[in-house]
Structures are given as C-alpha cells and as structure tokens.
C-alpha cells in the first residue's frame, strides 16, 4: 500500500512539467501567432485609440513575459477570463458544456471496449480462420473511416431514411423544456428525478453519436486485444486450465481475457486524446452541445479568451485522464510500482 501511495505521488509530480509545457504551447499558439484579436473583435475599422484602450483593458499591451506569468497564475486559480463576445465567464461556458462531452466520450469508450475487446478475443481464439481475417479487415477499414463521415452516413440511414433515431441534440424538445439541470450529465439527472420517459429520450439521442464514436475506436481495441490474447493463449496457465477440463469458452473469455486486459487499460489512456478529437468531430456532426462545438463556434466568432480557455481545459483533461489511467494500472498490476 505504501508503495502504491509513493507511486501515485511520483506520478502526480511527473504530470506537472507536462501540464506546464502544454499550457506554454497553448499560450504560444494563441498569443504569439499572427492575427490581432482586438482589432478583429472590434471589426476592421475601429479607430486606433479605441483599439489601444481595449488592449490595455485586456492586458495585451504588456510585455509577453508579464502576460505569460499572468496567464499561468490565472489558470492556477482556475480563472479563464471573460469572453470577448458574450457577457460571460469563460469557465462558466466550459462548465456548461463539459458534462455533454464527457457523457458522449464515456459512452463512446464503453461501446468501443464492448465491441473491440470481444471481437478481438474472438479473432484470437479463431486465429487464421475466415472469421479472424474478416475481423482484422474490419479493424483496418473502420480505422480509416473518418468519424464525421461515419456519423453523417449513420444519420442518413437511421435518421433520414428509416426515421428511427434523432440526428441532432441531446434531448427532444419536450424533454428539453422540462428543467432537470443538476449535474449536467443528463443520464444521471434523469435518474435522479426518476423521469424514465426523459431518460429514454436522452439515451435515444445519445445512441447514434456514441455508436459512431465507439465504432471508430473499436478497431484499435480489436487489434490490441487480438495481439495480447495471442500471447496469453500460448501461456502455460491457459494450457493448464484446458488440461483440467475447464470449458474452452470459459478459459478464453474469462481466464485469458482477464490477463490480456491489462495492456488494454494503458491503451485506453493513450487513446483518450484520440477519443477527444473524434468526440469534437462527432459533436459538430450531431449538433451535440459539448466542448468541441463551443470551441468551433468561438473560433468562428474570434472569441480568443474562450478559444484559449477551452483548449486549456482540453489539455488539463487529457493530463488528468492519463494520470488516472496510470494509477489504476498500478493498482491492477503491482509489478509496475516496483
């Protein structure tokens, strides 16, 4: 237990320089690149004096080093400044949208795991058979289908042609009108107030976007599970279990899969960045009111503080998830705590 605690502390400390560098990259990209946020914001024809005044208000006329320190200090206090376009704190806008993104991402990850891990284990079990080749081919093809196109095609089939699933938003109009804001995670909220009709509506809206997201990521899990399972199925304890007369299916899907799962956990952490990118595209495709939509909308409006704030939150999110995954990994597999 003490070992684990030591590992967690060491791992958390290791995150700090990474976060610091990520924040620096965001600062460099948003502040130093060409393009003047203030004159864009005020429209091209604002008089020089107005621009200067606004710049002073926003602190953009100070030396870059000062701006940089202020920026880091702001983030330490979790203050992302004010929006340039709306009368709104950036942190408030992000708070509103973050649950939608997390709900979509988690649902997508679950679907990807469900599809990827089981098909991967199946392919490994049926190695070098037609099913194996077919599944491996699926793994390659699904990886090459852009998530936004898959989303559009699913919208076309299930929403436009079959009329069975909604293609936009998190809820239908009726449910949207009934206020159940508490956590912002609609599934939890509807369960909390025991409104089962609303829960059904929320799940129905979540289905297509999360399926899109899950399918695209599932190929990677399939391949990884298959590769790990091939190693595990060759090991002595699998042979021993088979020799003891345990049913083949139980040996493969219970004993072997459990051991093949540990590297998949690491992969989940690495894939999270990829998942976030795909979630952004899925949000745009399905008009899902999450962080990705927020970022894109504010890019069109040239709302620099919100753009910067959203990207900072994305960076913090990725760093946190990779930290959590590593800690879970250390809990599951005592060997890496050394």
């Amino acid at each position, binding site marked *: 237990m003490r070992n684990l605690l030591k590992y967690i502390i060491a791992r958390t400390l290791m995150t700090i320089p990474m976060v610091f560098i990520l924040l620096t*990259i965001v600062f460099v990209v948003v502040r130093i*690149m060409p393009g003047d946020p203030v004159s864009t914001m005020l429209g091209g024809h604002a008089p020089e004096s107005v621009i200067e005044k606004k710049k002073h208000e926003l602190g953009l006329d100070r030396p870059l080093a000062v701006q940089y320190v202020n920026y880091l200090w702001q983030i330490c206090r979790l203050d992302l400044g004010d929006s340039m376009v709306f009368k709104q704190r950036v942190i408030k806008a992000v708070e509103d949208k973050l649950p939608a993104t997390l709900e979509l991402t988690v649902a997508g990850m679950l679907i990807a795991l469900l599809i990827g891990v089981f098909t991967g284990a199946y392919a490994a079990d049926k190695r070098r058979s037609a099913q194996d080749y077919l599944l491996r081919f699926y793994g390659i093809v699904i990886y090459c289908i*852009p998530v936004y*196109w898959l989303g559009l095609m699913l919208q*076309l089939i299930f929403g436009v042609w079959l009329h069975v699933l909604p293609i936009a938003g998190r809820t239908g109009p009726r449910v949207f009108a009934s206020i159940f804001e508490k956590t912002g995670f609609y599934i939890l909220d509807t369960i909390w107030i025991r409104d089962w009709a609303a829960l059904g509506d929320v799940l129905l809206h979540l289905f297509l976007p999360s399926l899109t997201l899950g399918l695209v990521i599932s190929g990677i899990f399939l391949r990884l599970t298959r*590769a790990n399972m091939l190693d595990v199925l060759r090991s002595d304890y699998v042979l021993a279990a088979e020799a003891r007369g345990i049913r083949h299916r139980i040996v493969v899907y219970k004993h072997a899969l459990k051991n093949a799962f540990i590297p998949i956990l690491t992969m989940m952490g690495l894939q999270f960045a990829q998942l976030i990118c795909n979630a952004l*595209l899925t949000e*745009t495709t399905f008009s899902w009111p999450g962080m990705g939509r927020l970022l894109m909308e504010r890019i069109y409006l040239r709302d620099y503080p919100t*753009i910067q704030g959203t990207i900072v939150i994305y960076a913090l999110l*990725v760093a946190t998830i990779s930290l959590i995954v590593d800690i879970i990994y250390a809990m599951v597999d005592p060997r890496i705590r050394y």
Partner: protein
Amino acid sequence: MRFSPAAGLGKLLQRFMGQGKKYGMEWWVMIIGATIVLAIVIMAFCAPYIAPFSPYDQNTGPQLSPPNNIHIMGTDNLQRDVWSRVVFGSQTILRVAVLAAVLSSVVGITFGLISGFAGGNLDRIFSLIMDSVYSFPGLILAIAFAAMLGPGVVNITLAVAVIYIPTYFRLVRGQTLAIKEELYVEAAKAIGATNRVILWKYIFPNVIATTVVVFSMNVADAIMIEAALTYLGLGLPPSVVDWGMDLAMGKKYLPSGQWWLITFPGAMISLLALGFTMLGEGLSEILNPRLLER
C-alpha cells in the same frame, strides 16, 4: 532461347505470385494498398482529362440532381458536377497530406537523431516537450494552428505537420539510443570517425527503414486530419476544391435526403486513407515482422 514478351511477362507474374506465397496475406495487403494509392495519384495527375466538367462550372445541369448517365455522382446545389469535384479534390488532399508528412518527418527525424545521439540534458528537454505535444489531442492542436494562421494551402499543411513531429521524434530517438550501443558504431568511434560521420553514415541509414512504415501510416492519418479541418471550415479558402469542404456543404442537404453529396467525397477520403494504411501495414510486416507485434 528467343525472347518473347508474353513469356517474359509470365515469368514476371510468376515471380510476383511467388512473393505473395512467401509473405502470405501481408503481401496482398500491401499490393492492394499500393494499387489504391497509385490509382488515386494517377487520378490527381490526370484530373483535367478524367473529369467531364470543370469543378467550378456552375452550369453543368440541373440543381441537386441525383446520379444519372451524365452526372455519375449527381450535382450539387450550385449545379456543379460532383464527380468532377471528387477528381480535382484528390489533388488538394494528396498535396497537403504528403507535404505535411514529409515536413514532419524531416523535422522529427533530425531532432530525434540529435537528441538520441547527444543524450544528457538536451535529450531530456527535447523528450519532455515532444512527449507533451504527443499526449495533446492532435486535431485540437491542428485546429488551434489552423485558426490562428488563417486559411491557405501552406497554412493547413503546417497545421497538419506540427502534430506528427513527435511521432517521428520518439521513434527515431529510441532507435538511435539502441543503435548507438552497437558494436559497429563503437568500431567507427575507435577508428576516429567524427560525430557527424557516425550520425549520418552509421546511424541514419539504419533508422530510416522503420520510418518508411510510419510515413505511410502517417499520410493516412494526415489525410483524415486534413479533411477534418476543412470539414470544420478551417484551413482552406472556399475557392479550393476539397473533399472535406464538399462534405461540410453536403451535410446541409442531408436532412432532405440528398445522399450523393456526402457519400462520394467521404468514401474517397476513407478509400485514400485505407490505401495508405494497407500499404503501411503490409510494408511493416514484410520489412520488420516484429514491429507490429506489440
């Protein structure tokens, strides 16, 4: 024996099939991938001869017409021919994706070699920066760059290139660290070769082989990122013909059931990415069977 073209061709084909037998499935994966890539590259080069209409021509037929004999992929809302736009769109995406991959590989390989060879604090700092960029969601970084740089073919290429530098860096640095300890490098050092000679004559040629595989996969990924950026409305001015932009435009007509506007450009993005991925997969199995076993 008299030379006959038919027999020569037959022999060539036989050798070709023999290769297939030797490597099995992976050989065919590579060949199919290479064929797809080659077909689309030819399409891009011969675009003016293949496309029946100009991609900008706003008077090719009825508005939003479904696929028929004259317009095999239908027409869009501005009466342009979708097939012609698909053909010309291949030029943009190939140019951006390949250029971006070249750019990031040159930068990544150079820094990876230097960092791995030099070691010490320089290596530590480089690695930390590269690892941080690597962990950052690539598309979001590209979005930030594309949004700040503004639209343009060069700008989108830069935005896409930035996110792949760490991939090459990490690969090459790891290889350099391993090769540095090899006996032949020690020998070169012993006979008085300078660092520069060791780096370029002894380490670089051994590193480059593995990057070929990564390069092919990288182009596949860059294709999807490029199309994603233009789908989001970033990166390119509206005057350029591009699959991602056509997809975004077709999205507006999806609720009314105009399926051909999204189906064809999207399928082409997938096909091109699939070609490069299969090429990379096959190559990696053939060049280095142990690379993909992870």
